[in-house]
């Protein structure tokens, strides 16, 4: 159980990254959805002990994260949004290195674990290659493997699928779905599908604030029957925006499709649309 209370953070350049964020997250896969720059990574980094907030607190299973960093790190698995790899170190070496740092001192155990991990994330045949030569998907799989070392109770996965091709993304989500039980997994992403595929609980964060909170099912229920769509010409979008609460507008076969939020039938050619997380997301961040 992770309890985040009243977290605020302003960077030296004046950007307010987090505004009074409070969340309580229980076991299972938790999706944190938000656009670029919403403060997701700031939140993730703060939970991962890499930066201190200006105010607020984070408690995980009795550990005061901000004060007992070392304790939290013992139960943490963290896959950062941005991480590089040493160009001339192999995956196997690097996993050994991380395993050592995670307190696995027994050589034999460590060897077995690294081997098992490499096999599980399908990197075993590339284990001796330098990480510098890995493709994006391989790198992310390596990333999750290192995060899983040491039986973590809290796993933070920050934007893992950004930039992956569809096949790699699928495979990666597949992998994630297997680890999400009995422990807290926080998946931060700006890709709506990731959350709808994987999470049973979620929050939407925008401009440093939590704007929506709940499990995807109930959120969808809340929205069902309130999303309406219509195909229009490009130049009409502005007019619609002024009359309705526009959720999103996207191109479809050369014309625009607009989604609006309305508790009642707006008429005027709008047809009911099945609500998706995407609608909820856009409705919240716009």
């Amino acid at each position, binding site marked *: 159980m992770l309890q985040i209370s009243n977290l605020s953070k302003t960077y030296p350049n004046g950007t307010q990254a987090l505004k009074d964020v409070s969340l309580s997250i229980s076991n299972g896969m938790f999706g944190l959805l938000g656009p670029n720059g919403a403060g997701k990574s700031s939140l993730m980094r703060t939970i991962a002990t890499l930066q201190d907030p200006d105010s607020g607190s984070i408690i995980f299973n009795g550990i005061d994260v901000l004060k007992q960093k070392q304790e939290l790190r013992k139960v943490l698995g963290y896959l950062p949004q941005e991480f590089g790899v040493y160009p001339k170190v192999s995956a196997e070496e690097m996993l050994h290195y991380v395993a050592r740092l995670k307190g696995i001192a027994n050589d034999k155990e460590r060897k077995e674990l690294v081997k098992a991990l490499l096999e599980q994330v399908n990197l075993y045949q590339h284990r001796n290659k330098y990480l510098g030569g890995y493709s994006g998907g391989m790198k992310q799989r390596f990333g999750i493997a290192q995060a899983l070392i040491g039986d973590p109770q809290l796993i933070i996965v920050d934007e893992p699928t950004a930039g992956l091709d569809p096949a790699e993304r699928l495979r990666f989500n597949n992998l994630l779905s*297997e680890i999400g039980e009995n422990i807290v997994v926080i998946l931060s992403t700006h890709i709506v599908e990731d959350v709808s595929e994987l999470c049973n609980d979620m929050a939407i964060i925008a401009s440093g604030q939590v704007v929506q909170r709940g499990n995807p099912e109930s959120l969808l229920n809340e929205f069902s029957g309130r999303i309406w769509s219509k195909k229009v010409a490009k130049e009409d979008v502005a007019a619609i925006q002024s009359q309705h609460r526009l959720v999103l507008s996207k191109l479809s076969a050369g014309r625009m499709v607009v989604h609006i939020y309305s508790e009642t039938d707006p008429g005027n050619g709008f047809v009911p649309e099945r609500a998706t997380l995407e609608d909820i997301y856009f409705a919240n961040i716009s």
Partner: protein
Amino acid sequence: MFGAVFSFEVRRLLRVPSTYIYFVVLALVAAFVAMLSGGLIPEAKFNFGGEKIYANAPIVIDAFYSFMTNYVGLIILVAIVGNAVLKDFQFNTYTMVFSTPVSKFDYLGGRFAAAMLISMLVLLGPAVGLMAGYATPGLIPERIGPFMLAPYLHIYWQTVIPNILIFGTIFFAVSLISRDIFVIWLSLIVFFVANGVASSVFKSLDTQTLGAIADPQGAYAKRMITRYWSTWDKNHRTVSMEGIFIVNRLVWLAITAGVWALGYSFFSFSAAPRRISFRKQTVPTSGKVSFVPVAFHKDALPHTHRSYTTATMLRNLWGLSVNECKTLLRNVYFRIILLFGLLFLFLTSAQIGQIFETRTYPVTYQVVEYFSGIFSLFIIILTILFSGEIVWRAREFRMSNILDALPVPNWVYYVSKLSGLLFMQVLLQIVMVVAGIMVQLSKGYTHLELGVYLEYAFGFGLIDLWLLAVLAVFIQTLSPNKFLGYFIVAIFYFWNTFFASIVLKHKLWVFSSDPGVIWSDMNRFGHLPYPFLVFKLYWGALCVALAGLSSLLWARGAEGSLKLRLKNAQHRANRKSWALVAVSLMVFIGCGSFIYYNTNVLNTSLTDFQEQEKQADYERRFARYKNRPQPRVTDIKLNVDLYPDQRSLKANGTYLLQNKTNSPIDSIHVLILEGVNVTRMALSRPASQVFYDSTVAYRILKLAQPLQPGDSVTLAFEVGMQPHGFTQSFRGLNTPIYNGTFINNQAFLPAIGYNNGFELTDNADRKKHNLPYRATANNIDDTASWQRNLFVTDADFVTFDATVSTVKGQTAVAPGYLQREWTENGRSYFHYKMDSPILNFYSFLSARYKVKKDKWKNTSIEVYYHPGHEYNLDRMIKGIKKSLDYYTTVFSPYQHRQVRILEFPRYSSFAQSFPNTIPFSESIGFIADVESSKDNVDYPFYVTAHEVAHQWFAHQVVGADVEGSNALSESLAQYGSIMVLEREYGEERLRKFLKIEMDNYLRTRSSESEKEKPWMLADAGQGYILYQKGGIQMHALAKYMGEDSMNSALKRFIDRYAFQGPPYPTTRDLVREIRMSTPDSLQYFVTDAFEKITLYDNKITDAKMNGSNGNWVVDATIESYKMYADSNGKETKVAGSNYIEVAVYKDRKTRSYLGRYKLHGGKNELHIPVTFKPYKVVVDPRELLIDRQQDDNEFRLGKDDDDDDKEDKKSSSVKATRG
């Protein structure tokens, strides 16, 4: 297009602040150096080639400006040129640029031209700085010559601009080829290394022309032109585009054009650089494999135990450190720098320990000292480089996002990374040792002393490297970025190495300092390791504190500001670390206090300036006693007990003092070096001590009844020397040491009367201490000074008797013949007695010696040497025998029945002649490898011959205490040894020796700090006149007038003055004898050699041969000029004719005709008939005349030979014009 690229780039460069920063930094540094050399800080003695050379002499400006250009300038050049094109790749702007229609030439040319222009502007900085610096008020006016713009302009267009173009092009081409800024830096390092190798390889006289052309910076060429310049030249002349310098510039500009073309053709407008890759990188493509779905079962992962105890951490540390070290070793640049380091070592190892261009055996201490000296520079570069690397690597590769969130305390990261660096240093030291052993073995030397290697490399060398590593990592930890960190470390390193001790005046403030350790085969490391380790403990404690702080402030997490880190470091969990820091700081302060107690309380610790002030004080207070009549020592009886293990001695004895003056003497002045304990000082007649000054240990004993002329009194004394603690620096000789004590009487025995030898002699220093100008020596016509001899003021010739005791196992030696040897109380005693009068100048030696004995007629020969140093004993003994043969035949009988050579440790490198005793340093002959080449100078033989000659010239005839008198001992000893050398090795091998001596004379006179005197008046400090010029001229004169005539003159001189008391002879007396044996036609030569400073400029401008079959004629055009130089080196041509030898050679080495011609100044046509087919004609083939340009003294004849040879001849006879 070109114009657009160019002007855009220039405008961009003019906008970035770094351009101005470079300019300002260069100007400031130059101004600082200019002010320092102009005497802004009187304590800092900072001049080039002596006080007579203006701080702003053209040659000094050239040296500064070129140095700034060639070193700092190159670094700036890399920064400017390196980025000219690379920035497009760095910022990915190449995608835009390459897709425009700009042509390759316009793009590259424009960028390059702009970078060059800006570099040239930036490198005006030093000129501006120097001009401003020299114009600063507050400088010493005599140090500053009149302002001249010309030197700056000359240097700018001759050196600065060409060097910018040459190196700019090289860096530009490298950037085009590699597209990697690091490779450019590397190429700079490669250049510095190659330059270092070249300076050592092209050192010998035969290869310097090649070196002068090969050096792209033109510095060697300039040095070659200016090496013999006099003070006047240096103050007035600027190197112009002349001789070898213009050749160098043209060759390199041509090469530069080629390099530019190469880089240009290599570059293409493509995104993918042609990388120079050392390992093929395989990038797995998402092939079939990656479509296999991942079957992940988290529960299937094996269970592991985790532990976070300190014990586990420590166990883990080893693995982590090895990991870090491996990473470093894997680094390509590490490998390249290591490779160059090794290459450098191997290439320069041939030069180790050369004397007279003759190498020594590669004994371990020499190899390890040389290697660790050179190689540690590479290790330091690597350490500094990788200190940044280990601190910043995780952040640079963005791996820190993962690593920083791992459950590891900071200290584990810090210690593992630091240990990786320390491991690397250990490995490099091992590599160094292995390389040293390989060099030793490759030269067939098998006496490997692993212990010496280990102690040097791991006992001493490693400590310094480790300290540096901790400091560098600390600085990097605090630094906001890696390059600033490098910059700070580098600046600190330079400051600490070169300036800290001058400015801060005590080693306590010089990071990583120590009093020094030096190995001697005889004394091993002696007593030096203890103070060394105390100093290192002091610095080690500081470094532990720095390590603690580094670990506390280790950057972790997303936000790295120092303020935040400091806040985090105050966390309760860090209490132990803070405690460590506090404890180490306490140890640091404790050690520091202990060091201060040793160096400044138990011992006195004076800076040079304070030392000089003390001398000045001595002179101010006691000089008035200078001419007060004092009795002279006539008999000496001594008991000297040496305690090598305690490094102490006790001595007692008596001097018989006789009043040799015509007036009664009422008080006796006794002077003894401070630091010597005096327990008894009593006269045999009633007397009282009326004055005692402890700072300089000056005593005046007043006799109750004055000592009447001719009367004698006995002075009995008891003295001791005892070391207290340790000092800031090590003084090897003249104090008892564990094995190899060499101490002379002046170091611990009393002397009578004021001794002007302690006065401050350097007139620039005297001025700083408000003392009047002092002539460097007494005037030759000062008859009062004829009453004293040159070496000792308080005695003429004395009788001598000494009993010396030492620890069992050592042999103690003093002048005289061994009367008795016995053991008493577990100590060895030796009683020596001299049966003929000697100078009051003698020494005591004690060591565990082996002795090699031989005999020459009735004279016994003994060489006391350190076991293991047998290499050249036979050469030395042969040297003694041949010398005795020659000297006893041509001069006079040898006054002793014995010649002894005694080895002493290498703390100084000289041999010195005492009565029948010649102490001889272990480094100057005992390990010479004369056999390694046929051309080698047998210097063990030569030095021996020189020292044996001193038994005549010093110990039989000694000069008066006036100018020129040193020539009577040094030049004559040099003459004797040259003649013995020539008899043994022949004229041809002597030539190499004379060539080296000639070069030595010409180079040293060029940096004379006071004024060059003619030989007859040379000062004691003017070794280049006494030894080099004296030897050359005496030898030349002997060739001109005939060896027998010369020797008969010397014989008469000895007969007349040997063993005579005052008045002592001067050089006038010698020259008078020589003139008597010289024919009238050669009297001019005696004048030139002894009374003038004479230089010749001889060359053969053209020569032809005609004839056939044993009937040949050589027609040669010889240009000859003779010049007299004044004391500042200003030369005037002398009209008239001179005798000059001309030789014709049958082949390269065989001289088949030698004639002496009377040549007038200017062009002479010679017609020389010979009976053989001539190969070459040579003017002054025997190196008799002093001639700065010797390579034009030869002319190769013969048309049927290949043309290349002739071309060669022509290009090397390009000649500098003289003013």
